[in-house]
């Protein structure tokens, strides 16, 4: 756990080879001047590479991950976390393959969640295996309790009362959970869902500007804004980094759920939610997800081959391997690239 000041990346922000995958041409340079005057801050100072953005994570930290199940997960950041050095993590998430990849890499000490699922495949194979080996402590919550814990942290409250969980085994499986009695005439005894403060949050948006204003373009914001509000350090990846004015051209202003005071680092990661869905940019890559599930089963040789093919290198190598597959896995990448090229 870090104390005092917010964790800082070890390399200079947005400089030299760390320059991220975003517009860096003359137009971007021209925009910088305007941004400096309107926002009093060097636009682009938050733009980081994937590895720099993830380098803030230290052993033992509590990491919140946005999205839901196998939907709009910040998978590029998760993949980087899985191949990085930080371990012994507490992961707070509406769990999907983010949990699976981190579990397969042995990064998770404790999971705080209500479920782990791949949606179209109900059970997450790596999470299952790790739990059945007794490797992961599971602080299991009702889905609404998890939201309440994030909201309490966001509001700097010690807890929020909730009915969910009463009578169930949640109090038996979530250590230290207590009840609170209403001070009003009803006198109801409810669960006191403790705040779930996060050291770092990872979320993935469809679009963001370099300052961290972000839009979701799909039908559900999930709880990404709450993850950001509950965290001390917030890392936002996105399909495309755009100019600020572009954000409201592509989406109603209500889609700008996350603004720049909720974000510390911005990373452009095209196809970065793959193989989870990131509608309308792309659907879940069901074919690839099946490959992932199959590889995770059996004696481990399948997973070793999967790891060698997709996870041994960096994000660019991952995306290249996905494209090289062709089929639906490759097509997902193609769609993302076509949209890039269309701009």
């Amino acid at each position, binding site marked *: 756990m870090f104390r005092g000041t917010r964790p800082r990346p070890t390399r200079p922000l947005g400089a030299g080879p760390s320059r991220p995958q975003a517009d860096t041409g003359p137009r971007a340079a021209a925009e910088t001047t305007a941004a400096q005057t309107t926002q009093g801050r060097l636009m682009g100072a938050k733009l980081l590479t994937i590895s720099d953005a993830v380098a803030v994570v230290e052993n033992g930290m509590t990491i919140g991950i946005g999205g*839901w199940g196998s939907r709009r997960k910040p998978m590029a950041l998760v993949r980087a976390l899985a191949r990085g050095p930080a371990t012994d993590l507490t992961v707070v998430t509406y*769990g999907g393959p983010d949990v699976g990849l981190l579990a397969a890499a042995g990064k998770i000490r404790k999971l705080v*969640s*209500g*479920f*782990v*699922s791949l949606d179209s495949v*109900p*059970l997450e194979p790596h*999470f*299952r295996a790790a*739990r*059945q080996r*007794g490797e992961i*402590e*599971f602080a*299991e*919550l*009702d*889905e*609404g*309790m998890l*939201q309440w814990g994030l909201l309490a942290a966001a509001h700097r409250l010690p807890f929020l009362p*909730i*009915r*969910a*969980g*009463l*009578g*169930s*085994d*949640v109090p*038996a*499986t979530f250590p230290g959970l207590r009840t609170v009695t209403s001070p009003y005439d009803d006198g*109801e*005894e*409810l669960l006191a869902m403790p705040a779930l403060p996060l050291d770092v949050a990872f979320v993935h948006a469809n679009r963001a500007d370099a300052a961290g204003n972000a839009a979701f373009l799909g*039908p*559900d*914001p*999930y*709880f990404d804004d709450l993850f950001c509000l509950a965290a001390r350090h917030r890392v936002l990846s996105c399909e495309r980094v755009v100019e600020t004015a572009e954000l409201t051209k592509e989406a109603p202003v209500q889609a700008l759920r996350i603004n720049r005071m909720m974000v510390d680092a911005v990373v452009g990661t095209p196809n970065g939610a793959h193989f989870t869905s990131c509608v309308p940019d792309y659907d879940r890559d069901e074919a690839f997800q099946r490959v992932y599930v199959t590889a995770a089963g059996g004696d481990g040789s399948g997973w070793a081959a999967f790891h060698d093919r997709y996870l041994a290198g960096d994000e660019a190598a991952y995306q290249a391997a996905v494209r090289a597959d062709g089929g639906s896995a490759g097509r997902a990448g193609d769609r993302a690239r076509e949209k890039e090229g269309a701009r």
Partner: protein
Amino acid sequence: MTQLDATAAGATGTAGATGMAGAPGTAPRAARRADVCALACAEAFRDAGEILASAFGTAPALGVRLARRTFAPDLLLSDGEAMLMADPPPLGAVPAGAVVEGWLPFRSVFDVVASGRRHVVMIPSQLDAHGNMNISAVGPHGHPRAQLIGTRGAPGNTVNHRTSYWVPRHGPRVFVERVDVVCGVGYDRAAAAGPAASRFHGLGRVVTDLAVLDFAGPGHRLRLASVHPGVTVDEVVAATGFPLALPDGGPGAVPTTPAPTPAELDLLDAFDPKGLRFREVPA
């Protein structure tokens, strides 16, 4: 009794609806077990009013559509993502141009749960006679023999609004004396946890591939309410891992679960043109 919406066939008149059973000039087909299950799920929503109807599994998904289209027109249905659909869509992809009547992302669903204006059908991995339900893990929670999907919204659902259950394979591994992890709260646990837990608690029915059960047994214990056509009371009792209460009058007094009418079968075929329900319940 069943008031069919006159626009029903037209509204779902996608490619899959053509050639369905009961088309003019063909004899109505006989109802299969999966059809009976879907209607039994629909019946859980009779008189439910203007609430969100949520369903896990094929028979419940068809049931809420059938209920919405026939005897429970005030129900609200989602597309499984974040949209409320003005007209129940067929299973699978929502047709292009389908009318959206509302926006209900996950966080709004949680608000609806807490408000109580919802009835959900969930699929238990284990269920006991009091209605305690497990979808978390089999074996000790710290080191499970089988990790399941996780408790999801079951704790909140069961203490906030009506919850029913769908069991596609009625057997003693599902119907157990004691569940390993209590996710959905049964009557005994709700009562023991105090007024805040029991205030809005109330389980609906349990529909299985063999029978319909309710919680009208002694002390709100599970009771056999009806057996599906072709199923005997003895079969259901033998497939249940605890003593199953029977209606007054004993085994002979157990009624048979109603089968869908030809018009209801037509609707089921229109909602499920690929016959997914027959894969879920092959009998």
